[in-house]
């Protein structure tokens, strides 16, 4: 079987489905291929947070556009995705952190973000249960929020299907065909070949392998992160609390009343291992109670693990590669769900019109990869 399409997307997570939706909405005959099941990669394992508090211009603007899209998703896609602007509170327990936040806030405000530095006392009015020992203040953005990643992907895929386009689950890409440094087609494990002038690598943790199939060596690698969710308790509107201390972590109360959270391991753990560890659940329990002691009576329901798809500088690679027609939207570095809707829209526009809404050099394929940014 050899079928021709206008564009093919590799990957059924937030990036692939959002981009697929915006391409389909432009009238393109899109095919989306997912090797396992929808949200099987990073999207379905994230902790649902959506923030705009970043430290570089392109990321701030992308995240702000994403929040706009999330807040209108019900009207645009016809489905409720549990979007709530519950806010993000970045806690500063050290002077150096506080001054970094203040510097970054000034930049974020230049783009019109409703963010400000608040006192420990004000933190207590937002989260009365918060342990404010040693707390100097926090960077607070009330328009940050949360949504349900499963429902967002479902909303995008339902819309792709209702626009008459195809999504194939369980169809794994095994090779890409390039001719004259232009992408031509791809072949799947099932032995099907599909051709298109546009192919997008949205494979998340598998992005490097997919890139190499076309001879494109993307500087991305998966990194293991664990997460947990508790039983639901009454909704107290507790925003995402980000604790940057050595034994910190981040968690939020879902609209379901459940707490969901994780921490970044001190030492990076490369690879795609998604097994659960006892060490994580014990450590996370302790860290959550350090911030909100009252959580000791809440019960942990489930833990799991997933992969961040990292780049050396913590910013994604959203661009055409040096193989013409072969695009990448990868290396989300833990921000795929929150940036996904806007990046999907921008990428669809870029594929068709060859233009970005603002300077996206930070995300370019050919950049030199420096060190990680402050709030990356």
């Amino acid at each position, binding site marked *: 079987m050899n079928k021709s399409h206008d564009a093919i997307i590799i990957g059924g997570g937030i990036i692939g489905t959002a981009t697929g939706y915006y391409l389909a909405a432009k009238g393109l005959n899109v095919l989306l291929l997912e090797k396992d099941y929808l949200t099987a990669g990073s999207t379905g394992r994230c902790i649902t947070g959506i923030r705009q508090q970043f430290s570089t211009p392109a990321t701030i603007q992308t995240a702000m556009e994403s929040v706009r899209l999330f807040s209108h998703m019900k009207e645009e896609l016809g489905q409720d995705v549990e979007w709530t602007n519950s806010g993000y509170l970045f806690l500063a327990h050290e002077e150096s952190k506080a001054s970094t936040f203040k510097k970054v806030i000034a930049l974020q405000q230049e783009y019109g973000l409703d963010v400000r530095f608040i006192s420990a006392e004000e933190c207590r009015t937002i989260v009365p249960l918060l342990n404010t020992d040693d707390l100097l203040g926090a960077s607070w953005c009330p328009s940050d929020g949360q949504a349900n990643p499963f429902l967002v992907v479902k909303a995008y895929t339902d819309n792709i299907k209702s626009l008459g386009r195809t999504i194939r689950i369980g169809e794994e890409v095994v090779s890409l065909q390039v001719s004259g440094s232009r992408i031509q087609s791809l072949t799947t494990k099932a032995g099907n070949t599909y051709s298109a002038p546009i192919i997008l690598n949205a494979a998340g943790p598998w992005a490097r392998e997919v890139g190499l199939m076309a001879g494109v060596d993307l500087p991305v690698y998966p990194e293991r992160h664990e997460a947990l969710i*508790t039983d639901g308790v009454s909704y107290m509107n507790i925003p995402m609390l980000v604790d940057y201390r050595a034994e910190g972590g981040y968690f939020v109360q879902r609209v379901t009343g459940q707490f969901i959270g994780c921490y970044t391991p001190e030492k990076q753990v490369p690879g795609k291992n998604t097994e659960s560890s006892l060490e994580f659940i014990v450590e996370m329990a302790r860290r959550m109670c350090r911030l909100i002691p009252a959580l000791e009576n809440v*019960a942990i329901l489930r833990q799991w693990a997933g992969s961040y798809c990292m780049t050396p500088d913590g910013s994604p690679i959203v661009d055409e590669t040096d193989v013409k027609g072969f695009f990448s939207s990868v290396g989300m570095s833990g921000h795929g769900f929150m940036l996904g809707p806007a990046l999907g829209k921008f990428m669809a526009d870029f594929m068709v019109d060859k233009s970005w809404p603002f300077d996206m050099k930070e995300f370019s394929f050919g950049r030199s990869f420096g060190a990680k940014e402050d709030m990356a």
Partner: protein
Amino acid sequence: MTDKINKEDTIICRCEDVSLADVEAAVESGITHPEELKRFLHVGMGPCQGRTCGLLITRILKQRGGSTETVKPTSQRPPFVSVPIKNFIGPEDE
């Protein structure tokens, strides 16, 4: 037999209040992978972690021609039953 019962009133997942009609509508819309049903309908994600609905879902998918390769129990995750956070935390370190 499933044609004779009231599908709206037949609860498949008690924790998340998902009926047989909900599951069938989802399958009808093209969701045929148990991991997708779990994520999109939340079946098996409540306090019982799929002890009741897991087998029912597997049976429904198999009855509708699901392949043995994909229709199997979803990932089981610790702690398997809800455990209060305080039970994970020992006495304060010195």
